[in-house]
């Protein structure tokens, strides 16, 4: 064979260029003249400029690329089983996957649905191909995550909680946060939800903590499956970030959109922070057994991914287009992470509420304390006693920590906006909207409900903006219920009809596991309903008292 002759050279033939292919594909669309396309998803934005497709990919190359990615994922799952991954996996970690994987498939498929909304709004056809690929990507993510969850259920020591996953998603107080995230992608103003909230903020900023930081921690806990699946998922995100940025550039071109963009960037950044950092921060910091002091804490990861990467290189450059960036909000979010213990307070709340979870949470130990103190100086003074109480009260027969007056924990209000409880007590606030009193975790969440999600914004009609609805305070659903009855109603009881699905420990022994009888007699209550019954003066006093916070009692 002559030198330099390769198979590629033998079979190569002239083809159309990528640029020509994408130009031809973009030319498939046309402006209808017989019947106009239905414009069913409203927006208050104006989109005059056709967005460009930065990815220039066609489906002919997309499908084989994705199939190859899938082959690697499923091959790796098989390899993990052959390598007996579950023998060495840390149950502390996998338990949190019951929560995380109950939540995430619905936000993913909601993102697919949202492509219908932006696909029809964006003028021109170039980006429609990008939206179509994102739609199929999100279908991939949702079902590949359901598959991963099933795989855990089949192979992990305690499948309870995985087995009821989508039912649990609909009922649990913690998954409500994820529903707020997902519904935020598809409901209300189409650009606010499907472009700004989903692609410009959630996917561009927070998927890094969701799909990169979390897989790293999984690997440290002997779980090689989550990184395999989620890093593959994250590899699709660059396309989505490109779609979002391209549409954003079309919007930003019209100064008339700037007011709404500023509103939506403020709302979306704050709520993404409130939701994602609460959930992912807790899982990464409290679901791990790895206490290597050289690894980055969630706060350090946040600084790298959100502050340096997103705020400095994505948000700040928007200022040159005349958009006012809410620098203070980014600073406030950072302060909540490092000064106000946002993640630690969330972990405390999730663990206090363990009886109404559908996964296990074990106590943090001395080894964990040392790491937390190293990474978050002052942590031990604030949370050390709490976790000792938690360990002490994890044995059946003890009074559950949720109802145990010796501990000193004070059950929080729920934020009507982000759905995370109002855990940073000094920032707690309330307001009246449409004649009804609501509670909020922060001033920005109050603003989100009262000012952003309204029919008018700063004197400008916003008829397309969505509204908060439903029984948003979970505790309202079980106000006055005996906790054992509530757990039964939730379906968080194991197949014997008595043993709880959640446990405050990782002991896989019937004799050590909590049953309904251990909890019966204590009642759940709605802080909001009680708050609304107060007179204005009493309410003011209650707010002042709440802001003072509480102190966990010393444990002896």
């Amino acid at each position, binding site marked *: 064979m002559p030198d330099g002759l390769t198979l590629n050279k033998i079979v190569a033939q002239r083809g159309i260029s990528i640029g020509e292919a994408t130009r031809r594909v973009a030319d498939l669309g046309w402006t209808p003249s*017989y*019947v106009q396309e239905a414009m069913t998803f409203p927006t208050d934005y104006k989109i005059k400029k056709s967005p460009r497709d930065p990815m220039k990919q066609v*489906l002919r190359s997309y499908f084989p690329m994705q199939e190859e990615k899938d082959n690697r994922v499923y091959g790796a799952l098989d390899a993990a089983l052959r390598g007996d991954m579950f023998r060495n996996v840390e149950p502390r970690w996998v338990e949190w996957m019951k929560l995380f994987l109950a939540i995430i498939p619905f936000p993913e498929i909601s993102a697919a649905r949202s492509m219908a909304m932006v696909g029809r709004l964006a003028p021109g056809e170039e980006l429609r191909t990008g939206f179509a690929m994102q739609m199929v990507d999100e*279908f991939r993510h949702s079902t590949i995550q359901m598959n991963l969850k099933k795989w855990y259920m089949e192979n992990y020591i305690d499948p309870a909680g995985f087995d*009821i996953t989508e039912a649990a998603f609909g009922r649990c107080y913690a998954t409500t946060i994820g529903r707020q995230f997902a519904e*935020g992608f598809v409901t209300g103003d189409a650009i606010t939800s499907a472009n700004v909230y989903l692609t410009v903020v959630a996917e561009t900023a927070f998927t890094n903590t969701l799909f990169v930081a979390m897989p790293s921690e999984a690997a440290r806990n002997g779980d090689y499956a989550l990184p395999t699946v989620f890093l593959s998922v994250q590899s699709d995100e660059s396309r989505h970030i490109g779609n979002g940025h391209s549409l954003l550039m079309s919007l930003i071109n019209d100064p008339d959109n700037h007011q709404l963009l500023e509103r939506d960037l403020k709302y979306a950044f704050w709520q993404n922070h409130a939701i994602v950092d609460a959930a992912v921060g807790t899982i990464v910091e409290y679901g791990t057994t790895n206490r290597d002091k050289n690894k980055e804490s969630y706060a350090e990861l946040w600084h790298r991914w959100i502050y340096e990467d997103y705020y400095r290189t994505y948000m700040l450059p928007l200022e040159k287009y005349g958009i006012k960036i809410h620098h203070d909000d980014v600073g406030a979010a950072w302060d909540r992470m490092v000064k106000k213990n946002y993640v630690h307070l969330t972990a405390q709340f999730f663990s206090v509420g363990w009886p109404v979870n559908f996964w296990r949470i074990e106590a943090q130990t001395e080894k964990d304390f040392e790491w937390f103190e190293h990474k978050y100086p002052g942590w031990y003074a604030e949370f050390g006693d709490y976790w000792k109480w938690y360990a002490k009260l994890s044995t059946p027969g003890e009074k559950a920590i949720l109802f145990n007056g010796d501990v000193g924990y004070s059950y929080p209000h729920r934020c009507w906006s982000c759905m995370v409880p109002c855990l940073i007590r000094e920032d707690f606030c309330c307001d009246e909207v449409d004649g009804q009193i609501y509670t909020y975790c922060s001033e920005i969440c109050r603003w989100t409900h009262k000012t952003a999600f309204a029919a008018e914004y700063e004197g400008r009609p916003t008829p397309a903006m969505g509204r908060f609805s439903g029984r948003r305070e979970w505790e309202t659903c079980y106000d006055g219920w005996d906790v054992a009855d509530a757990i039964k109603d939730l379906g968080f009881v194991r197949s014997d009809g008595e*043993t709880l699905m959640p446990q405050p420990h990782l002991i896989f022994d019937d004799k050590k596991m909590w049953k309904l009888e251990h909890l019966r007699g204590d009642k759940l209550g709605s802080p909001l309903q009680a708050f609304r019954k107060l007179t204005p003066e009493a309410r003011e006093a209650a707010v002042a008292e709440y802001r003072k916070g509480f102190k966990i009692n010393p444990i002896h």
Partner: protein
Amino acid sequence: MSATQEPVKSGAAGAAVFAGSDSRRYNYYDPKGRKATHYEDMTVDVQPDPKRYLLQDWIISFADGTPTYYEGWTQLKSSDWHKYRAVDQEWERTHYQRQSTIVGMLKNVIENGRRSGAPARFDKAWVKVLQDHLGAYKHAEFGLGTSTMQAQRYGYTQMINNAILTNSSYKLRFAQDLTLYLGEIALDIEGFDLDSGKTHWLEDPIWQGTRKSIETIMGATDYLEQYFATNVIFEPLIGELFRSGFVMQMAAAQNDFISPAIVSAAEGDYERNLANTVELFSMLVQDQQHGEKNRQILVNWAQTHGALAVEAANQLQPIWSQPRVKVAQFADAFDQAKNRLRAIAAEIGFDVRPIIGG
């Protein structure tokens, strides 16, 4: 002693026996068959519903109070939307495998055909047919792709929306398949005008009925009307008529072995999309409570879209005369299309004869 002092050993299934340790199936829904399929496990209940497990109801609404998902987004009603399962049982892995296999097959056919010099041997009159009419038809496929992309937002369950989503994915892929195929053979055929197809789509009277039919589907605000009009009406009366009744039958006689292979992929896609569609609409027609009302709505939709499609099909007739070697007749192909529609309608449970005769 606190409970946490106990050591944890293996995290593997079977390492300990305790309450719930053998609960290794999703247990929150009833499988359609005796055992849950993998598709069902991947799909059922991912989109929640206040009638099932959504305790707090939808928590965001549109400005007018419409919730995130709303049964009233279609005129059709169901006693239980959650009973529906897509016949093709697609989830992401099977979808990518199938789509990837198709584009691989098409790429091979085109590459090998071009390498053998096949496009240069296509009959000259046929080249013009491909340029003008296959070039025009690709826009119809794109219209159905964007229409179903829109429709997949509205369904009341994950099963319905995912079936419509994969339908959209197939249509958009095929529109691109045709675009790239024509772009590639244009490299081998001197004077091949790639802009001609869109011009015919927008201006040629032969295609105006089809365009009107497609734009009517794209303009429908009822997502199930879009899904119905796509797969029950347009596909048999126009899509298959043109793809099978014209391109696949005529091409070989014009020295073209490539185009039928390209177009055959869409026929395979349609069989799956049709099966999913028939399953859904027959479920709705058989609904004990709403079946009769649903059937009447389908008849109304069939009348609206059927009339447009019949008119469009008749306008396409001159295309059958354009190839030099005439091996198929429009009348035969259209009869077959109408038979196909009658069979589909019968399967769903409504009578289409008042619209197309027979």
